């Protein structure tokens, strides 16, 4: 589903990604871990189409298409969803209307008719119930005045509503208490199907107790320095990130 080859990216003069290789197939869950500044979030943002990053080399194929050629909105319409590490507050744009505009923009791209208000609300309410999101959230402006936990749950709600093929969670666990973490994890696990792929970007192993990954990759200085199964995450937890710096670089996962 996703092939990342030798991806390099920078912000201004600062090189952040320095040769990422990663292959993700449908049905898989990949965790990307790494210390602060290793390039985890940059990778997520580059995949979502953030224009503040310059891709200087490499390529990304998504379902055989050149992903880097697509605008952010077309990536979303093609089925990519990124849950933001810091969801943006948008005063004046109602959450419900925003969600519906997004659903219908994606449907239009796929040649489907608009979802009527009734069907839309029925669909959203069902997801909200499952994710234990208060219905009040729909009436409020997008993320405005939301608590940290509400913002993250709102991201997962959007993911559930938009039903992506490839979901990228950028540190969705950070700042969540254990109850909220479980709800978020349940939401993600509910989306685990053989047709869908999930990339979980996280600093902590904790989330991976609830979303058990098929693969774990460790990022350091803009490269994947080691890859393994979920055991690698536990090892990291035990030994700390300093441990990876002692590993020989260039295993070229």
């Amino acid at each position: 589903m996703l092939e990342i080859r030798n991806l390099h990216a920078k912000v201004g003069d600062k090189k952040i990604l320095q040769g990422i290789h990663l292959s993700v197939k449908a049905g898989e869950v990949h965790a990307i871990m790494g210390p602060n500044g290793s390039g985890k979030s940059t990778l997520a943002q580059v995949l979502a189409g953030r224009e503040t990053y310059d891709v200087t080399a490499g390529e990304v194929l998504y379902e055989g298409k050149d992903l880097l050629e697509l605008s952010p909105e077309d990536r979303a319409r093609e089925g990519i969803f990124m849950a933001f590490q810091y969801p943006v507050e948008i005063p004046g744009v109602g959450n419900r209307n925003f969600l519906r505009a997004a659903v219908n923009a994606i449907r239009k791209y796929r040649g489907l008719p608009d979802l009527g208000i009734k069907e839309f609300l029925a669909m959203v309410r069902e997801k909200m119930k499952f994710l234990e999101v208060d219905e009040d959230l729909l009436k409020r402006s997008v993320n405005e005045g939301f608590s940290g936990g509400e913002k993250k749950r709102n991201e997962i709600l959007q993911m559930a509503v938009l039903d992506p093929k490839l979901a990228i969670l950028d540190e969705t666990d950070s700042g969540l208490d254990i109850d909220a973490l479980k709800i978020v994890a349940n939401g993600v696990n509910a989306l685990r199907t053989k047709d869908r792929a999930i990339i979980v970007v996280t600093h902590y192993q904790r989330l991976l107790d609830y979303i058990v990954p098929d693969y774990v990759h460790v990022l350091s200085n803009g490269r994947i320095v080691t890859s393994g199964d979920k055991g690698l995450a536990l090892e990291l937890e035990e030994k700390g990130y300093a441990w990876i710096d002692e590993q020989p670089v260039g295993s070229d996962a």
Partner: protein
Amino acid sequence: MIEVMQEKETYLSQFARLEERLTGNRQPWFHRTRKAAIAHFAELGFPTTRHEEWKFANVAPLTKTPFQSVAGSELDVVTAESLKRFTFGGLDCTQLVFVNGRFAEELSTIRPLHNGMKVGSLAAALDSDRERVEPYLALHAGYKDQAFVALNTAFVEDGAFVFVPPGKIVEHPLHLLFVSTSPGEPTVSHPRNLIVVGDNSQITIVESYVGLDDSLYFTNSVTEIIAGQNAVIDHCKLQQESEKAFHIATLAVHQDRASNFTSHSISLGGAFVRNDVNAKLDAEGVECTLNGLYVAGGDQLVDNHTLIDHAKPHCNSHEVYKGVLDGKSKGVFNGKIIVRPDAQKTDAKQTNKNLLLSDKAVIDTKPQLQIYADDVKCTHGATIGQLDNDAIFYLRSRGIGPEDARNMLTYAFANDILSRIKIDKVRAHLDAALLSRLPKGQEIKEALC
């Protein structure tokens, strides 16, 4: 300078010619007021950009256009049908219609009124209601130092007279609809409204200024509002003049003890627009809220000047003005707050936020705080900016196109002011008017509704 003199001369000679025929001149007291006003205008002349209050609004294109006062013969081109788009979708309200500044009784609807309440033409009230008009008219809008108020006072033909006796809650909103059309020579009207709200009374008033077509005309309006003790007044002014029109409007509010006045000033139309809102908080415990929204594009100029005069202690004022400027348009916001030595415990808050949608749009924003008391709380803030790129990316990352994302954010920015309007049907009307001013407004509406 000589040129300016001549332009002033046009109006002075017009006055000399029309003087005897002007409304209400059978009342010697009012005739004297007119004469005083034209004398002050002769002294003041038209402001130039050297005038501090007119620094950013050059009135030369206005003074150079020979606007004619009209007799009201075009009244019959305006029909109830043609006014429908300016009304509020079946809102149950009293509606007074004025065509080129003159009361059009046959187009107006007056709901049953409380005992002692008056709603009608000011021209008629000058003759029939002297004891209710004379104590208030021309007392609060300063014709001695404001040239356009002087001009209005000298030439006033008609407008609305509203008198609410003490202790009346006026259930139906009042809509004053000023429609202008100038199919031939450019014309000028000087609408004048006098609204007196007694102690413990409550009323909601909407003033609309609209162009029937795209003709060139000049509206120079003045509204005086007198709020009695504990009176509650919600005032909304909607400016949707023609794209060629000049619109200069002054709203002067005088507030007595514990009165509560809210103004919503929504400016969407016109080529040259100047709004002055002057509120005098002249007794203790007064609440004054001024909200404003100006949306401009093309070559439009919209200048908002507000003055909140805290004259007495324990008064609160809140002011939020927002502007959306596109094309080569120019916006001005000048918010003056005076806190007099007496006005201890004043709480005044002023905010002005502007969104510039093009490189060529300009905004001049200036807070002016003059504080002469020491135990007060006054804050002000102004922002000028573009749309938030993070918010645009967030929307795009959910599949919403860049244009739609920008439009949604622009709409949300502006709609914040409209959302403060309490009457649903007026808000819905303004919402539609706002959407029609934004690119792809219809699509935003479809996406958001």
